[in-house]
């Protein structure tokens, strides 16, 4: 038996390099320079990175928090304000540092008021008449030690036995118990990180340290608050996106998703928590939609949602008027049709004009008549566009369905792998080739699926034919490999099966790369022409 993963047939002479590249794939982004200066990097074809891959950084929640802290510290140092005030300012400007710096340098008081760092203006402040402490610090908690002539009555709970009060920089004092109930409710019930002063119409916001203080050790709510802050940070940052998979807390940082670059790049990223967590950075599609551009994929999905069922129904239940091409459903009556729109009278059976039927009411035996044939030709032309759509849609849907079935295939394959270990001397590690093959099939089916969406919108040309050649080669290879995986296992054939599957896997992988590489290159060269206007693409 030959050694594992020895693919060095002449046919696949560049396999080694390819496998290397694959191993290094998840970390390509991190080990290259991650300097954020190059704002609009398109696909960079250096090193091992493929043309169809983009640079990105998977981030854990802690790393996102570090980024956030970095921004806050940066602003805090520039403006000379404390970190909590800097955080409020940044949140107010949706974490756009440049804009914040511009505006703040222009009129710091107005920006601070709008961001809820300080009261709007002394004159219109609706605060109660209390001596205002002139302090820069955003929050203050103080104990009433000296017996005041009038005991403090909290204007919210009307309790005069409370001794501890808190207030924001606006000076509206309330008892700490009320603050706690209020802040807890805002965070837990409303999922709100912007917590304004309880005073009526008061726009001052509670800074983080104040929130944490009044929460008084309620770590669960504090954790939720932190989560809300991170969410706001990620949602505001153009180059950050959360992994859309359920309960995944990872995020991805990517710098290529600017509007203009989406016309040439499909920024598929992975959050790093699980290799299956692949999604598109440029649009909300939760999965890998390479090689189709975001705007084309969106158009296709929209069309499928709107049209596929309707189109199927129309195809089976209607005909078009042979004169004005209106779609007509015959829901009863005789074959003498009169188009409601153009009043054209025709025969439902042969589609020819009714006059020629003479007195042959209710029956038509004139199928081969010339006018009838030409009427049916016109009809079939208008059907062609429907048929064309259904052709692509059915293949698209078929690959999607097959990719979904791969879960079952996995289970089956695992069983086969166990059988192999029992019936032969192969070890666990040596039967991994099956799993690898299933993974590859799934990956390629995803690619294939989207190639049909792409082909639907590609203008007929030599380029499209080349595209479809690549598509056909990939499809053929994938189907062959699928068939191999389904074939029964017999002890004596295992070595050959193994060799075949391994070879085929590598071949399929290669075809997939060619497909993706070629389309990506086509985008760069502007080789693809669409048969319909595509958003952001000229």
């Amino acid at each position, binding site marked *: 038996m030959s050694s594992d993963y020895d693919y060095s047939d002449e046919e696949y002479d560049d396999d080694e390099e390819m496998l290397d590249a694959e191993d290094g794939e998840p970390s390509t982004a991190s080990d290259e320079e991650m300097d954020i200066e190059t704002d609009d990097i398109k696909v960079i074809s250096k090193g091992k990175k493929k043309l169809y891959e983009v640079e990105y950084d998977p981030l854990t929640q802690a790393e996102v928090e570090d980024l956030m802290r970095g921004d806050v510290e940066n602003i805090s140092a520039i403006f000379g304000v404390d970190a909590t005030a800097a955080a409020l300012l940044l949140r107010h400007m949706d974490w756009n540092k440049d804009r914040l710096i511009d505006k703040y340098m222009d009129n710091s008081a107005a920006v601070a008021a709008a961001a809820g760092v300080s009261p709007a203006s002394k004159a219109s402040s609706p605060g109660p008449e209390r001596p205002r402490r002139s302090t820069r610090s955003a929050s203050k908690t103080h104990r009433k030690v000296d017996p005041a002539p009038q005991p403090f009555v909290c204007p919210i709970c009307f309790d005069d036995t409370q001794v501890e009060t808190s207030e924001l920089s606006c000076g509206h004092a309330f008892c700490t118990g009320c603050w706690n109930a209020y802040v807890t409710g805002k965070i837990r019930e409303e999922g709100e990180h912007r917590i304004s002063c309880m*005073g009526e119409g008061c726009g001052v916001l509670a800074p983080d340290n104040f929130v944490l203080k009044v929460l008084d050790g309620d770590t669960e709510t504090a954790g939720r608050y932190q989560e809300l802050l991170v969410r706001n940070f990620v949602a505001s940052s153009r180059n950050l996106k959360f992994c859309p998979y359920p309960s995944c807390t990872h995020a991805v940082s990517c710098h290529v998703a600017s509007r203009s670059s989406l016309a040439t790049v499909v920024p598929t990223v992975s959050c790093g928590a699980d290799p299956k967590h692949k999604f598109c950075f440029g649009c909300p599609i939760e999965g890998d939609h390479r090689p189709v551009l975001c705007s084309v994929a969106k158009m296709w999905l929209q069309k499928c949602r709107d049209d596929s069922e309707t189109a199927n129904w129309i195809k089976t239940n209607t005909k078009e008027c042979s004169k004005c091409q209106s779609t007509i459903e015959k829901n009863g009556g005789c074959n003498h049709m009169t188009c409601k729109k153009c009043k054209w009278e025709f025969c439902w059976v042969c589609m020819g004009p009714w006059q020629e039927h003479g007195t042959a009411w209710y029956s038509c035996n004139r199928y081969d008549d010339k006018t009838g044939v030409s009427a049916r030709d016109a009809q079939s032309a208008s059907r062609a566009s429907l048929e064309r759509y259904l052709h692509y849609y059915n293949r698209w849907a078929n690959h999607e369905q097959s990719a979904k079935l791969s879960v079952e295939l996995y289970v089956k394959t695992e069983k086969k792998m166990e059988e192999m270990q029992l019936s032969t001397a192969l070890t666990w590690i040596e039967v991994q080739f099956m799993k690898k093959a299933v993974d590859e099939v799934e990956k390629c089916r995803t690619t294939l699926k989207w190639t049909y969406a792409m082909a639907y919108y590609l203008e007929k040309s030599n380029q499209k034919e080349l595209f479809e050649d690549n598509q056909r080669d990939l499809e053929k290879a994938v189907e062959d490999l699928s068939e191999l995986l389904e074939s029964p296992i017999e002890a004596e054939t295992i070595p050959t099966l193994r060799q075949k599957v391994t070879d085929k896997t590598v071949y399929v992988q290669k075809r997939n790369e060619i497909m993706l590489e070629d389309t990506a290159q086509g985008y760069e060269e502007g080789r693809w022409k669409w048969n319909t206007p595509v958003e952001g693409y000229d």
Partner: protein
Amino acid sequence: MDARLRRVNKEIADCKNDKSTNIEIDLIDNSPFHLRGTFEGPQDTPYAGGRFNVDIAIPPTYPFQPPKIRFLTKVYHPNVSSASGAICLDILKDAWSPVLTLKSTLISLQSLLNSPEPDDPQDAEVAKHYLTSRSGFQETARYWAQVYAGAPGAKSGDAIALAGLETAHVDRFESIGFERGKVIDVLRRLNYRGANIAKIPEDKVVEELLKN
């Protein structure tokens, strides 16, 4: 004592002691968390002289969340649903502040009656009426106040006047052979009032009448 209960009790007591505003808050059943508020329609408005009841439900998170208030008395007003009594008012939603009280909220409702906001309507049909014909709207609002809120000149409800329509218009379509109730319903929905009438061809009305 529970802070919410203490606060609500004090609010009810304060309201009882304050005779100047003519605002009442009563218990509906024996719970202090389900109340009925009553206030007078503001002077110089179609609502003057009527007494309006609202249903007040105090949520468990009160006063940190706003009370849930809706009109029990039927009111013809752009920001109040003429069917359910639901109210569109910012302080009952995100502009709520815990320092606001039931009394101050009821005063706000009173001033809402005084100054409708037809651009942010709760009842789109009423808002359209308000924008099409101010005097027609006021007449209908007045009529509703008389029928439902006991404003002076109390009348028993007449369906045409309640819908803010003119008897002549309803009669005309009724004479074609449509049922009276249906005619009122369609004309109200089409906002068949004032200057708008010229914009609605008769065919359109008949088409609507034939629809269901």
